[in-house]
């Protein structure tokens, strides 16, 4: 089973981060919140493993 990784996993982290910031450009707070929620749900489905998601939530809460 795939484990959650908290080590660097993106080839170009700055590019991925910029994608995220650019996606929110010009959005209101409500629109951004909605976008984030949809994005989390899509990524959760991509991960496809509730254990990994649980570990990710725990890591995010630290």
């Amino acid at each position, binding site marked *: 089973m795939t484990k959650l990784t908290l080590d660097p996993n993106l080839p170009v982290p700055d590019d991925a981060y910029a994608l995220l910031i650019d996606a929110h450009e010009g959005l209101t707070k409500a629109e951004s*919140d*909605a976008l984030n*929620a*949809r994005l*989390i*749900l*899509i990524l959760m*489905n991509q991960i496809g493993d509730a254990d990994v998601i649980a570990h990710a939530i725990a890591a995010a809460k630290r």
Partner: protein
Amino acid sequence: MTYQDRYPLAFRLYPYHRSADQDAGGRVHHRVVIVGGGPIGIATALDLGLKGIPVVVLDDHEGVGQGSRAICFAKRTLEIAHRLGCGPEMVDKGVVWNRGRVFHDRDEVFSFDLLPEEGHRHPAFINLQQPWFERFLVERVDRATAAGAPIDIRGRNRLMALQAGGDTVDLEIETPDGPYSLSADWLIACDGARSPIRDKMGLGFDGRVFEDNFLIADVKMTADFPTERWFWFEPWFKSGASALLHKQPDDIWRIDFQLGWDIDRTAELDPARVRARVDQMLGPDVDYELDWTSIYTFQCRRMDRFRHGRVIFAGDAAHQVSPFGARGANSGIQDADNLGWKLAAVLKGDAPDTLLDSYDTERIHAADENIRNSTRSTDFITPKTEQSRIFRDAVLHLAGHAAFARPMVNSGRLSVPAVYDGSPLNSPDALPGGPARSRPGASCPDARLTDGSFLLDHLTGGGFVLLDLGAGLAPALADLPVLRFEPATEPFLADRYLGESTQGIYLIRPDQHVAARWDRADAATIAKALDRALGKAA
């Protein structure tokens, strides 16, 4: 003091009659007294009475109250009703349905088929007004008593006080003719969500309150909507934050609108205001009458324990859920199904009274599952926090174009029978390759047989049964009746009970749940499993 009813009746089913106990000049003793003549109390009385156990049912009215209330009766409930001898009339009168559709605004975002396979006697659900469901049960009691079943339903007998804690329970009862006294070995409390018995015994009933109001408008109209459960989130017709449309018998349609928390209940129940909401939904040209309206709120909660010595709680008295998922009445009927045979076995001396502790274990397991599902549905329909609402809306938004989000859309996860995984009555699964759906603890999946009958038709005798699927069990093993079928010619049985195995033996409880299964077993193994299922295991 005159005897006052609390509500008007839909059907007067058990008129008050003066019992000989009222003239006995002292406290009369009974083995089992059930308080509450609703669906759970009557089903329990019927199950016990059909097993020859004398039972007295006390109800403070003479029948069933008005209002359609619970309308969705699940397949498992119908199977239990069938076992008790009143299934066909329910299915005949009810509206059969298997499919639900969920809409967001105008768009369908999710649909489900609750019975996507053949070979079952009963559909996933029927819709039937609760008064009819209760009436069919009581009519079945009347037929059973005519044939000698010792069931005594006493209308307008109100429990005023009780004394529990010893080997018997003392009861003080009020009637139109004045008070009298009874005692019982066992008291079954089926007296509803506001259970007076629970209050009189000072027992807690804690859980979550949901801050929302729902308006029920049952309307009478002829319409050609399909017989499906239709649910809208943020409906285009804007009659509520969500809405539900569902067909009942006699051209009655259940319509439900979500109103929010801060409302004026009296104003919202004004017929003109109700009609305005319904008109928005159905359009101005549809002719209908308002049949019944009600506003409800709900809670998800249960008692810590359902058995308190000689007092046993069942149905809404023991646990309460939101209506989304039809897990209220349906779980209560499963309580009755679970309790009936155990109490009968204890009273007949076939089992120690600790068998009744397994009612606690198994039905609390089921109640927790129902509360978990019901709470999740409610959290989706009525989000508690801003973030919860943001995610809910995100799911609905995504469901329009991303298939993965559709199964997250939660308008109610509909009642399925509890599987008693981990029950002390189960023996370890010893059928390699056997299907998970018929594992120990599960209720037996129905299966059509080649002679046109169904497996569950053969499991109505009220005792334990061995099912032999090609295993060649010796005839008189463990003194249990043996049902034999040849798996090669019974495809539904082979699929649902053997899976990858070529032969199997099932030990089935009186409530049609699997107690044990093996690919092969000798008499000693079966006897041990039977002892365990009767609560005799060390």
